[in-house]
């Protein structure tokens, strides 16, 4: 040790005037902590908002999908949008009897299934006829179904009208009476197991028995034919149903297509209205959160400058005080040959040390408080929302710069002190 380094002098001086240093560190910590704390809170709120909105949007999407599905099912339960009948079918008779009395070759189903049509999601071929149920001596509507035929180009959809397996029967509520699924029932000289019983609908469906299409064809003595294909338009592209009908007619020229357009439109408009309502709710939520964030920002913009000015003023005063209380020391150092750069470095190094210590402690406290606050009051809070390495690094640099800026003028003043004047006063 032949020379005392600047760092040793600064370290010893800090230790000697620890309270002064502590006050300077405290001032920087409050300033830095204030800024980092505010930024962390913004970030936490912003991230929470983004998460909340994303969750709400997801919820809305799920609800809309559910709504869409339930309306789609509703449409099927009530009636399909599209019914394909033989071109020869008299519509008056169809509407009076509730079923067609003409037939189509079952091969038409295959033709449509393998066509390039993409706007139909579900296709259900059926053969329906009013028939006497000999065992009960009453007229019923017998419908043979095979289940939904999957369309080649349509995206696969969940089947909501499952087929009836051979040897089983699905019954309308009126026909089932007190029987339940699993019970045996005699029909047309054969024992069937009840596959399911439909809830009362107050329509002809209550008087309908559904069998496997092959079995129904045998009972009705109509092999290889059906008398209707029911389809549902996907509705997603808002395509004109007339165009869909034309397309079907072009594929199956010997058919006619009945469209229940109001039902499809109602379904689409209900879906749109629900979607719009959800979007509006989401937009309202987003606007409300944005307004809150704006309010917090305004408050921060009002408070932070006051905080920074107060801390800056405090640091400035502390620096002046340090220069005043060390004027003899400066004069003596000057008399020993200390350059003005060395004197300035003594004060600025001390300020940098206070800045670094203050910035780090300020950041640590601010992040700790932000994490505590976030954990307590922000649902789904993630610590990463509050711990922003880039901001913390920047704040540490800013804290040092802040402390240096406050010490700069006093440090320059220290170098310009006239040591002779001070020594003359002291001697």
């Amino acid at each position, binding site marked *: *040790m*032949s*020379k*005392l*380094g*600047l760092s*040793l*002098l600064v370290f*010893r*001086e800090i*230790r*000697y*005037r620890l309270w002064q240093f502590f006050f300077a560190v405290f001032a920087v910590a409050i300033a830095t902590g204030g800024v980092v704390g505010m930024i962390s809170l913004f970030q936490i709120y912003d991230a929470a908002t983004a998460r909340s909105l994303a969750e709400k949007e997801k919820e809305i999407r799920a609800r809309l999908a559910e709504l869409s599905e339930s309306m789609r099912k509703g449409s099927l339960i009530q009636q399909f949008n599209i019914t394909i009948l033989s071109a020869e079918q008299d519509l008056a008779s169809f509407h009076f009897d509730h079923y067609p009395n003409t037939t189509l070759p079952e091969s038409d189903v295959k033709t449509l299934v393998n066509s390039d049509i993409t706007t139909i999601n579900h296709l259900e071929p059926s053969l329906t006829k009013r028939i006497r149920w000999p065992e009960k001596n009453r007229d019923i509507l017998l419908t043979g179904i095979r289940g939904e035929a999957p369309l080649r180009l349509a995206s696969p959809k969940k089947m909501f009208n499952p087929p009836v397996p051979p040897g089983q029967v699905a019954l309308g509520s009126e026909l089932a009476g007190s029987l339940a699924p699993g019970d045996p029932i005699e029909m047309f000289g054969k024992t069937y197991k009840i596959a399911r019983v439909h809830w009362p609908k107050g329509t002809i469906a209550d008087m309908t028995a559904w069998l496997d299409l092959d079995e129904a064809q045998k009972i009705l003595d109509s092999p290889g034919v059906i008398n209707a294909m029911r389809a549902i338009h996907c509705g997603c592209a808002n395509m004109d149903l007339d165009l869909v009908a034309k397309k079907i007619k072009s594929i199956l020229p010997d058919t006619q297509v009945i469209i229940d357009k109001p039902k499809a439109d109602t379904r689409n408009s209900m879906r749109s209205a629900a979607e719009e309502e959800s979007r509006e709710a989401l937009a309202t939520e987003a606007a409300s959160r944005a307004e809150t964030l704006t309010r917090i920002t305004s408050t921060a913009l009002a408070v932070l400058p006051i905080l920074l000015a107060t801390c800056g003023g405090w640091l400035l005063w502390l620096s002046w005080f340090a220069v005043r209380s060390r004027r*003899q*020391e400066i*004069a*003596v*150092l*000057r*008399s*020993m*040959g*200390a*350059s*003005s750069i*060395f004197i300035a470095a003594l004060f600025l190094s001390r300020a940098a040390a206070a800045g670094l210590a203050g910035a780090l402690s300020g950041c640590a406290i601010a992040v700790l408080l932000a994490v505590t606050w976030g954990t307590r009051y922000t649902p789904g809070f993630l610590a990463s929302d509050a711990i922003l390495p880039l901001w913390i690094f920047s704040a540490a640099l800013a804290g040092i710069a802040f402390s240096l800026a406050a010490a700069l003028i006093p440090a320059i003043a220290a170098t310009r002190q006239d*040591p*002779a004047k001070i*020594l*003359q006063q*002291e*001697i």
Partner: protein
Amino acid sequence: MTPILQLRETSRSFQKKGKTISAVHPVNLSLLPRDFVAIQGPSGSGKTTLLLLAGLMLSPDSGSVLLENQETTHLSQEAKTRFRASKIGFVFQQFHLVPYLSLLENILLPASFQNTATQTLETAKTLAESLGLSHRLDHFPSELSAGERQRTALARSLLVGPSLLLADEPTGNLDPASARIVIEKMQSFADAGGAVLLVTHDRNVAAAAKTQMAMDTGTLSPATT
């Protein structure tokens, strides 16, 4: 022999409440190696101003200050600082030790401002030993007596091997035993080839110098016994 310090028609005045006060009238003073000059005078006579002029801490209004034959009057503040760092040692009545440094560190302090650090820890310890401070090296100024503080200040002023030692009332706060040690050290410094300019109003201290002068209202004259 080259003079270490020369004041040629050097004067200095101050402005106080709009009035010009002449602190030092044009003086001529030359200190050769081995000179030990004591200047006596009452408070306010201009002794300290003269000392600060000699130590390049003040610039003269007129005349010149030569250090080892080099004119210093027109040198920049930084150049004067460098001169002070290598050529001049100061001892003050109030010691002016740095409170947060130990005795040894205080002695070593001037070495921090040297471009070429030839001073070593050994030099500092030798100086401390010669002034009877070896047992106090790790103590801080607040733990030292006034005499020990002044001896530390003297050791500090001698560390860099200056050619000129300027002392302002160095024994003003000391007991006789400590004062004697300080004066003896200054004498030995002069005997070793340095020059000492001592300012005091203590006749006994001044008597230890080879040359005594008097200063009154800014005018320097040979002392009368």
